[in-house]
């Protein structure tokens, strides 16, 4: 299995363990289906195929957009197709190349949504995760830091009122609950880390600050 496939498998395991919590969070401001959407998203993530990382990422993104999960799956799919547009040959994916790919994925997402940090969306977890990965020394170390940054970002959305997406019409009523999209990003990065760490025989705490 390639590193990407291991990361995606880990992400799927995280979402499967937490999908009910995601749906419950979505009941606050949405229609309560975010957990089941994410289950369908990670199913596609696991089925991604391709001869090299670029093809693999593009296939993953396109498959995710196809699950018809509204804004969540469109934006997550865009993240992976955006990663596939990374510079370079796209045939390998070392730490610097993965950092560039994450940057490209984030840029693609931000072209499609006007949501800014602080608007209580997945952006609040994705922006710090990508930045933290860029500061990592190895892929594993970067993913650990990215997962921690994403979790903090998601947790901080608890104190924000929604300003974007369907939840914006509820505004202050969303205070006190983290954004389910941001929590999903945190789970994905935690899964990326664990999927890779477990294959390398490292413990869940390896590489922490």
């Amino acid at each position, binding site marked *: 299995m390639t590193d990407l496939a291991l990361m995606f498998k880990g992400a799927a395991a995280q979402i499967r363990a937490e999908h009910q919590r995601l749906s419950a969070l979505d*009941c606050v401001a949405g*229609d309560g289906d975010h957990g089941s959407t994410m289950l369908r998203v990670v199913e596609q993530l696991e089925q991604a195929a391709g001869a090299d990382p670029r093809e693999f990422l593009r296939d993953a993104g396109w498959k995710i*957009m196809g699950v*018809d999960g509204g804004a969540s799956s*469109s*934006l997550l799919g865009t993240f992976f197709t955006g990663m596939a547009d990374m510079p370079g040959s796209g045939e390998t994916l070392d730490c610097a190349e993965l950092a560039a790919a994450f940057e490209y994925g984030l840029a693609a997402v931000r072209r499609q949504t006007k949501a800014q940090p602080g608007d209580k969306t997945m952006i609040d977890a994705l922006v710090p995760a990508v930045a933290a990965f860029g500061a990592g020394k190895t892929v594993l170390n970067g993913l650990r830091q990215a997962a921690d940054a994403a979790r903090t970002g998601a947790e901080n959305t608890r104190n924000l009122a929604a300003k974007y997406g*369907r939840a914006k019409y509820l505004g202050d009523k969303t205070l006190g609950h983290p954004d389910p999209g941001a929590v999903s990003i945190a789970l994905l990065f935690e899964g990326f880390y664990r999927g890779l760490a477990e294959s390398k025989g490292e413990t869940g705490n390896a590489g922490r600050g």
Partner: protein
Amino acid sequence: MAMKKFINQPQNIVPETLEGLALAWPDQVRLVGSNIVARAKPKAAGKVTLVTLGGSGHEPGLSGFVGNGMLDYSVAGQIFAAPGAPRCIEAIRLASAGGAGVLFIVLNHAGDVLSANITMDMARREGLNVKMILTHEDIAGGKNPDDRRGLVGFLPVYKVAGAAAEQGCALDKCLEIAERMERNMRTLAVAVRTATHPSTGQPIFELGENEMEIGMGQHGEAGTGRMQLKSADETAEIMLNMLLEDLDVKAGEDLLVIVNGAGATTLMELLILYRGVSQLLQAKGIQLARGKVGDFITTQEQAGFQLMIARMDPELMALWNAPCDTPGLVVR
């Protein structure tokens, strides 16, 4: 209260709904590709085609308006969730076969707009001739057009643009007509009782026993204000006055009025409301030139309605009156 709905497996709701639509209206629609509703008989080549997308659970909207005189293709998403770009581009490619270009009509909801924008990127890359129009006429969203959702106003937009396409108008002309219709319409919704999400069985919002909420969106998005439930005439007056002010309607102008049921509000109630609107307009010297009453876009068994007004000119009125034959609307 437990959900009481006649469904089978929750994951089969959308395909089974679409199969039922095609079986019940075999002369109007058929299914192509994956959850794409197409006309039973494709439009002649050389005419502009109309494509839309939207979540399911709002029947007859949106796929119920595929047919002669209105849409060519509708891409149906999951319950209350937009379809992804891969299936939208599939429909756009099919619609491009006629060679006259595609008008892509999108209701302003975050997920739909995202899918549509990604689809438009793909269409440009493939060199397809597609123009997109966003409908956003829900005045509960406030002054910023980006915050105004697309509600039942899709109906006159599909109708006038569809009629123009049928008459052989070029893509730019169809777009101009759709945009003129869109600019001149306003909608406001009110809810009195929640719906259950058919997949999860959960209520999509909470509303007190004797409350109503003006401005609530199609998915339980919060509106502008909750208040004590009022009579039909009082409710119609509050909502109509807000709409008339926002559209800046003057005495002597011609209006199209639509009263759209949310799913569980009876035709009896809708007719009483329509009567109230008609009398109020008469008192203000505004002409109710045309009207429609019925369930065009619903949210399951939600109770409430949408009131839409649109300023009509002779060209828009002629296109509104042109024939169409779809599961959700027939004009002879």
